[in-house]
């Protein structure tokens, strides 16, 4: 019991150290504006991939519509900050809640489907959300929503990311999270163990969608403008790649996956002609040698080094 608390404190300390180092590098202008922007994108992608991992990796429900929920959160947040001058935090929370509610509404009927069928249904729903937004003139339609205040900075992204990580980590390591994992492992057995499988599938879907909405709010306030083409199914696909690359069912893996994918595509920005080729080769190579993803089911806290560090502090 005390060891769980110590565990959390240690992770929190680790997070703050990472933040301090990166913030220091930004203040010292060692990290230039190009990489500063990429740091924001990495943080947002971490939120996206960890929340998608809750649905795909932990609960085993194959969703391909995550960018749709991000879009909902993004548009709700920008309308609130730009048109109603709401505080940023309130806009983020509202975006998350609306996305979660939509996840709940969509999840209830679609999560009866399994495997490929669910993937296709969520793919379609993600596209529907985007096309609906594209046809709402109030938010600028296909041309996009302009004049968004630039609120998102590294501090915001980092701490929202930290909150997301803790919420999902704590959820997964509870009886409720175990219920989700049981559904992934064997739905029939899970039901026979007294788990309301529909409830937990929808819950995981709604929580995942909610955090995607928050990530959307952060993403939207990075730039002066957002438009629906940022939230196509290719974007959903990209988040899925991060999750699979890092390891389905590992939070550490999702962080690593988001980092690697974003970093590689940013580092190759100067060679656009090779970018997709190298990106594809990296993926093929990784899937060949680590089909379970970089971390498999492992977490950073499972490694010996971390355990020893924790032990040494007793």
């Amino acid at each position, binding site marked *: *019991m005390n060891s*769980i*608390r110590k565990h*959390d404190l240690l992770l929190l300390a680790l997070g703050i150290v990472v933040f301090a180092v990166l913030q220091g590098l930004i203040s010292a202008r060692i990290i230039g504006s190009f990489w500063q922007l990429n740091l924001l994108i990495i943080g947002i992608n971490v939120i996206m991939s960890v929340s998608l991992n809750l649905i795909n990796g932990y609960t085993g429900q194959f969703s391909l519509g995550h960018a749709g929920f991000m879009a909902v959160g993004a548009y709700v947040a920008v309308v609130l900050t730009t048109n109603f001058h709401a505080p940023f935090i309130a806009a983020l929370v509202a975006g998350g809640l609306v996305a979660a509610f939509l996840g709940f509404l969509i999840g209830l009927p679609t999560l009866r489907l399994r495997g490929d069928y669910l993937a296709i249904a969520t793919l379609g729903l993600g596209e529907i959300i985007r096309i609906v937004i594209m046809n709402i003139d109030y938010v600028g339609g296909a041309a996009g929503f302009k004049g968004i205040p630039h609120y998102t900075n590294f501090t915001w992204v980092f701490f929202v990311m930290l909150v997301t990580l*803790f*919420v999902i980590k*704590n*959820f997964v390591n*509870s*009886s*409720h*999270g*175990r*219920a989700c*994992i*049981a559904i992934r*492992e*064997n739905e*029939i*057995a*899970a*039901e*026979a*163990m*007294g*788990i*309301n*499988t529909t409830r937990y599938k929808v*819950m995981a879907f709604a929580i995942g969608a909610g955090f995607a909405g928050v990530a959307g709010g952060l993403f939207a306030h990075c730039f002066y403008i957002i438009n629906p083409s940022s939230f196509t199914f290719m974007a959903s696909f990209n988040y899925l790649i991060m999750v699979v690359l890092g390891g389905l069912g590992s939070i550490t893996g999702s962080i690593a996956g988001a980092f690697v994918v974003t970093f590689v595509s940013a580092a190759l920005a100067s060679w656009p002609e090779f970018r997709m080729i190298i990106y594809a080769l990296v993926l093929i190579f990784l899937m060949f040698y680590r089909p379970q993803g970089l971390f498999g*089911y492992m977490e950073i806290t499972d490694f010996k080094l971390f355990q020893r560090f924790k032990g040494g502090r007793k």
Partner: protein
Amino acid sequence: MAELLKAENVSEVFGGLKAVSDFDFFINKGELVGLIGPNGAGKTTAFNLITGVYQPTTGTIEFDGKSIVGLKPYQITQRGIARTFQNIRLFSELSVLDNVKIAFHSHVKYSVAEAVLRLGRYFSEEKDTEEKSMELLKIFKLDGKAHEMAKNLPYGAQRRLEIARALAAQPKLLLLDEPAAGMNPQETQELMEMIRWIRKEFGLTVLLIEHDMSLVMGICERIYVLEYGMIIAKGTPAEIKSNPEVIRAYLGGEA
């Protein structure tokens, strides 16, 4: 004696096939009852009807005096019926300990918010779940393998883990679907003693499907024999052994 489970006139029709018909039976509190019959006789269908996997086409099923027809499998488990599976259905990529912890699910009271914020009951209930799970594993001699992946256990141990997991759901009635399948005679013998022991220790009522006659005849107090979806005989092991219908069903030939 009080009836814990009572099925009356239950039948299950799949298309044109009557998998189970006019199924009448009861189990008293504390009894150990066997359900036997040739392959395809409808034994597992009967289990699936009791646990809510299938809904009966006709008839009533009562548990603890209340109808359980129309309830979902998880609701029936929460009412107090737990089962094992003929074809093992463990959470194979998870640890042995997690397999058992998952089954405590419906007895854990803390909310999602309490889990996320790590408040109040979270710590005490998690500790409780872990301790109780380890106790169960100890009973089934699996405590040494608590942190191994379930799929890496030998076959017999996987069967034992299924029973341990079912018990973690804290049932009043335990349904065992061919628990001795694939076990050697010595393992079957051990299993028999274990079933006897847990029944006494946990105050359970047990319904057992089994092919292994030595096991069924050895521990069951009453036996129902199914053939082609119908009960062709019922009674004590001694009565069943000498019943001509049963001999015909099992050995073939004319009665």
